[in-house]
């Protein structure tokens, strides 16, 4: 999962990384109290799990009460790259001399953690110039290496000392919380030479959740997604009107692609998983019936270990219980697919020989 800035900063604070004073809120009443406590000037920052907040107007300076009353609701109402504000962070204004870039991330192709640092930060990583890149195995950064990075960045005195300290703390955080990415951008050098994290990005490895109860309060999933996880299938909600169901993440992604190529709009990605049972597929159909906007279901199954008859049985039960009253377009192949087709004959499920035909029929049959 990806943490919001204020959540990442909670972890930074816990690990002793220098931060400006800041307070988060979700309504203007609390915001007003925080404004008083913090004192002007400060910055209002929208809390969304995507980048590009500044450009979208999600970060605003505030000099007095009038500006606060005007800007707080404006920022709160913004939608950035489809993401609504989760909270607002008020943060003291900083007197910055220079902006640096610093991150430790999981380098998937090299299969090791990697430090990226640059003396030219404050922009998105793709445009960060003169990157200093160091591979660090499982994430441990030695004193020598931290010093070397500071030296390559041409930092000196107090700034170098604090940078080294920050890098070491970031490494500890990465290892202990099993992060895939920890990024400070910008890491600011202040007028007095000290170093401060002005922003924070933190992505955890969801597979290590069972070892990190302390991070679960940051989990942001819809009730449906939580239910899906519990039942052993994976669900991603999308904003179209055709629910896409299949077995295997690759096959379902592939079905989404073909549906989109043909002008269809997927309402969800639902992978029933390798251990699907009639009960779990019925559970999946229950979730789909609760999703807004769904006008039809596209089913693409390649039965291997999961028998297609198991899935067919779940659909029949769903029809019998009036759980599903929309059209269903399906392609069934693999284990017991002939039997499954026989079971579904005459039901609400339309069966097609190829996924292409099922998709065409779904797109034609479900308009808007």
């Amino acid at each position: 999962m990806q943490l919001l800035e204020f959540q990442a900063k909670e972890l930074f604070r816990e690990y002793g990384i220098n931060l400006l004073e800041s307070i988060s809120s979700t309504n203007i009443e609390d915001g007003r109290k925080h404004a008083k406590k913090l004192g002007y000037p400060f910055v209002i920052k929208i809390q969304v799990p995507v980048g590009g907040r500044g450009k979208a107007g999600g970060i605003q300076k505030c000099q007095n009460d009038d500006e606060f009353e005007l800007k707080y609701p404006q920022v709160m109402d913004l939608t950035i790259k489809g993401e609504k504000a989760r909270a607002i962070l008020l943060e003291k204004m900083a007197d910055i001399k220079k902006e640096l870039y610093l991150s430790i991330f999981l380098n998937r192709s090299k299969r090791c953690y990697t430090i990226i640092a640059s003396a030219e930060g404050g922009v998105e990583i793709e445009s960060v110039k003169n990157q200093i890149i160091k591979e660090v195995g499982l994430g441990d950064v030695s004193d020598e290496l931290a010093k070397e990075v500071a030296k390559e960045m041409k930092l000196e005195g107090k700034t170098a000392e604090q940078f080294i300290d920050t890098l070491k703390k970031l490494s500890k955080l990465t290892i202990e919380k099993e992060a895939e990415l920890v990024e400070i951008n910008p890491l600011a050098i202040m007028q007095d030479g000290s170093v401060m994290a002005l922003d924070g990005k933190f992505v955890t490895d969801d597979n290590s959740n069972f070892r990190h109860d302390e991070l679960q309060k940051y989990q942001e999933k819809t009730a449906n997604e939580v239910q899906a996880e519990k039942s052993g299938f994976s669900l991603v909600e999308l904003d179209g009107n055709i629910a896409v169901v299949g077995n295997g993440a690759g096959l379902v992604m592939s079905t989404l692609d073909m549906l989109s190529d043909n002008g269809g709009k997927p309402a969800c990605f639902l992978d029933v998983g390798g251990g699907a049972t009639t009960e779990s597929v019925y559970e999946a159909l229950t979730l789909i019936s609760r999703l807004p906007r769904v006008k039809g279901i596209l089913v693409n199954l390649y039965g291997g270990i999961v028998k297609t008859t198991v899935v067919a049985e779940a659909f029949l039960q769903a029809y019998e219980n009036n759980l599903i009253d929309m059209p269903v377009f399906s392609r069934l192949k693999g284990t017991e697919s002939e039997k499954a087709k026989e079971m579904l004959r005459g039901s609400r499920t339309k069966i097609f020989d190829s996924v292409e035909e099922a998709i065409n029929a779904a797109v034609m049959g479900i308009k808007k």
Partner: protein
Amino acid sequence: MTDIFGLLKGKPGDSDYEHKGVIVQGITGAYGSLHAKQMIAYGTNIVAGVTPGKGGQKFEDKVPIFNTMKEAVDATNAKISIVFVPAKFFLSAAKEALESGIKLLVAIPEHVPIRDTMKVLDLANKKGAIIIGPNTPGIMIPELIKIGIMPPMPFKAGKIAVLSKSGTLLYEISDALTTSGFGQSITIGIGGDPVNGTRLIDAFEMVKDIPDMEGLVIVGEIGGDSEEILAQRIIDTGFNKPTVAYIAGRAAPKEKRMGHAGAIVMGNYGSAESKVSMFNKANIPVAKRPAEVPVLLAGKIRLE
């Protein structure tokens, strides 16, 4: 270079030629026992199983069960194991296997923490062992040996090598290949995790010199940059066997994990566009649909 065929088949004259022994870790669990039976039915020589506390029993009245990997390896001299334990026990199971002398470990579990995978890889490097997975359907030489969970129907012996991040797409595309008359010399499941024991590029190195290979099929998906790196390697080495790719996830939203832990686009990193454009640069056509793979492959072979 890893001689994967040497590991899976052995050499003519070996007493176990084309009959290599495989140990199943977690053989008495629901998943492990189901697939142990299916592997045996396929002809894989399952020589032992391991489940702590069940040593001395027999699986299906035939396969001896041991308490530890060390006992199982000592008794059978097997070099291959397949792991079915729950994700949180994978690290200790894999360590035990590698410490006992396993040289090829197929890691089936999904949801293994990345840090655990990295620790296992570290040890595997030291021991000169290969890890396939985690979160993989496994590896197979059709009609000879299956070490994994793939259903048998889609596969047929032949001369096309198939490398795939996804399980069901491996079945789907192999089925399409088989139907079009293209059997497979080997299929390797890379797995859907962010960190893979055998990366696409490693799998490519394993298969690129198969003497009578007619073609290569690469089944990738969004996330990471292993497809891009493989495409670059193909350019650099001048590999010229007919090659076709497929990439799943073109329509997936950014910053969302699409079922697989590794299937996530962050910024532009991991996007389908980036992968497709690198394959195009390497003169490798990318199919839009799984069914298009054999068509494109036939076209490439005709050009030979």
